[in-house]
């Protein structure tokens, strides 16, 4: 392709005159100080992002690792075995994978109708509502949770399964409302009109036309909600302990009571669903469903 372009450029060069002469030189970019600075900056950023992850991976497989060695002195899988034989830890894995799907589903059931209404009907105070949803993420979570805890005590929700679901739900509402609302809003009404025109009732139109077309946005929202629930530690700690200790909550005690290897192994385990799901929805997130959610007017 570029060879063709170069040939064309060469062929037209005499006609076009001096202006096109520097064109071939453009292919190899000169090493200016600006470019070097950008390169160094990117490298630093990469180390900043991937360095801790690499360090974590090393710790997870380390047997002995003492300062100042750059890599562990010996390797071991013993902490992986240990973790899987420790009932309390295994139970927390099970709990995390129970809460996250349930919270995601409840969030979808609660938020999707709201998202549809916000996208399609002239809801009074629509903008305020959207901003308020966002504002719940703007306050320091722990302060919010402590006030909610007061309420939960009164309602006898502390230490209950439902209480944990409820507190985790809180962090998912923004994703589950904003992103699907943008998806619904981006579907031309004529598509729904056309379905009614050929004989479909409102419900059927929603399930055969609206929902499938909004699916990518809803999918992204559900993944983000799943991860928000899966990684939620503060609220779950406050409401669930000691009955419901999920993986992120377990991390607290691991960090304080166990050698770094145990925490590292657990952290790797905790990050597997996140990485897997993010890779799964990468196309949609980059494709704009997420961005569109925050452009909602």
């Amino acid at each position, binding site marked *: 392709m570029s060879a063709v372009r170069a040939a064309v450029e060469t062929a037209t060069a005499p006609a076009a005159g001096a202006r096109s002469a520097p064109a071939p030189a453009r292919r190899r970019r000169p090493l200016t100080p600006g470019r070097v600075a950008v390169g160094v900056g990117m490298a630093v950023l990469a180390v900043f992002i991937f360095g801790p992850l690499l360090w974590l991976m090393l710790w997870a497989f380390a047997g002995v690792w003492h300062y100042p060695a750059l890599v562990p002195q010996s390797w071991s899988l013993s902490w992986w075995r240990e973790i899987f034989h420790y009932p309390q830890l295994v139970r927390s894995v099970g709990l995390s994978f129970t809460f996250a799907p349930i919270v995601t589903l409840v969030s979808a059931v609660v938020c999707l109708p709201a998202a549809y209404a916000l996208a399609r009907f002239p809801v009074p105070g629509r903008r305020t509502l959207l901003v308020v949803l966002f504002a719940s993420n703007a306050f320091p979570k722990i302060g919010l949770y402590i006030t909610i805890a007061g309420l939960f005590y009164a309602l006898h929700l502390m230490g209950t399964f439902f209480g944990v679901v409820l507190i985790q739900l809180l962090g998912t509402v923004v994703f589950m409302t904003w992103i699907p609302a943008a998806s619904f809003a981006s579907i031309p009404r*004529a*598509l729904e009109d056309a379905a009614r025109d050929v004989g479909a009732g409102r419900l059927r139109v929603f399930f055969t036309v609206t929902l499938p077309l909004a699916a990518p946005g809803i999918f992204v929202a559900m993944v983000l909600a799943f991860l928000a629930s899966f990684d939620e530690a503060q609220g779950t700690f406050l409401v669930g302990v000691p009955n419901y200790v999920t993986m992120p909550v377990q991390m607290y005690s691991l960090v304080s009571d166990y050698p770094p290897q145990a925490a590292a192994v657990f952290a790797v385990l905790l990050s597997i669903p996140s990485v897997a799901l993010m890779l799964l929805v990468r196309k949609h997130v980059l494709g704009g469903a997420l961005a569109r959610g925050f452009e909602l007017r």
Partner: protein
Amino acid sequence: MDGLVIEHLNKTLGNRLVVDDLSLRVAPGDLVCLLGPSGCGKTTTLRMIGGFLQSDSGTITINGVDVTTLPPERRPTAMVFQNYALWPHMTVFKNIAYGLRLRKLGRAVVEERVAAMLALVNLTEKRDRHPAELSGGEQQRVALARALVLEPDLLLLDEPLSNLDAKLRVGVREEIREIQQRLQIATVFVTHDQDEALTISDRIAVMSGGRIEQYDDADGLYRLPQTAFVAGFIGAMSTVAGRVVDAGLLLGTSPVPVACAALGEMPGIERGVEWSVGIRPEDVRVDTGGSPTATVLKEVPHGHFKELLLRLDGDDATVIRAYVGTEHPPTGRVALSLARALLYRDGHLVHEVAPLRPAVTALAAP
């Protein structure tokens, strides 16, 4: 009464009366265009016929059934939307089959009827494509097939050609007309393009300000535009102030002969009052001989004919248009005569002056 009957339809949208006491009849098998500039209420009317908007008052009856308050899914109408509104997540086949499947028809029946429709619109090979993989014209035909497969009593088309390029538009509109005539389906077609309306309609309702200005066939609309609005909207028309005198019409300061008759002898035309005179450019004869009454200002080539801008003698420097052949178009001072003229008062047509017997036809009480 069969076909579509609309009586005294009204619709206000956001404090604006968009459709104003509109009544219309569409005979079975007829294609009727709602023609008018943007904002004239034509699309609003169509959406009320389809059931997507509720009228404030008035009734809509289709083949004797009052559908005024029915939702779209329970009306015997099918609409082709302006942007086609094909469902992007379904194939061509599924788009067309959607409505049939709702009717709980057997798989074989659905297959057969969709196949027949695809053949009708020449899209059999595109059966398993998605709308995004089709050209604009093909999408348009899928939308048409999706509407027709349900064998509706009434087909509604909302500016279906506005998204196609000019050349394709002519082809597709002929196709639509051909299919419509073959199926003998009553059709309401909304457009702002008068060419489209004139070429494919049985009758045309010209709309302005939520009202029907004139409801007529293409010929009648062009020959006898009943209101000044229609005269200005359909085709080219010069409108000048004039009086009736013995020698013809006094336009500017010069008498211009009309038809071959002396108007003074004609009964029924009020004299000594000012008329608004409508003149089609093809009805103006331009002569270099005789006593000149106008000056050629400008010559505009249109391919197979030329358009002249003529300034009539007189203080107000009124300009009228004339079509002439491309060979030796007249220049400078010229004499004009008219083959035909229309006399309007208060925006309404009162007389047609034409070389018929009698030369003057009284059309309405002045």
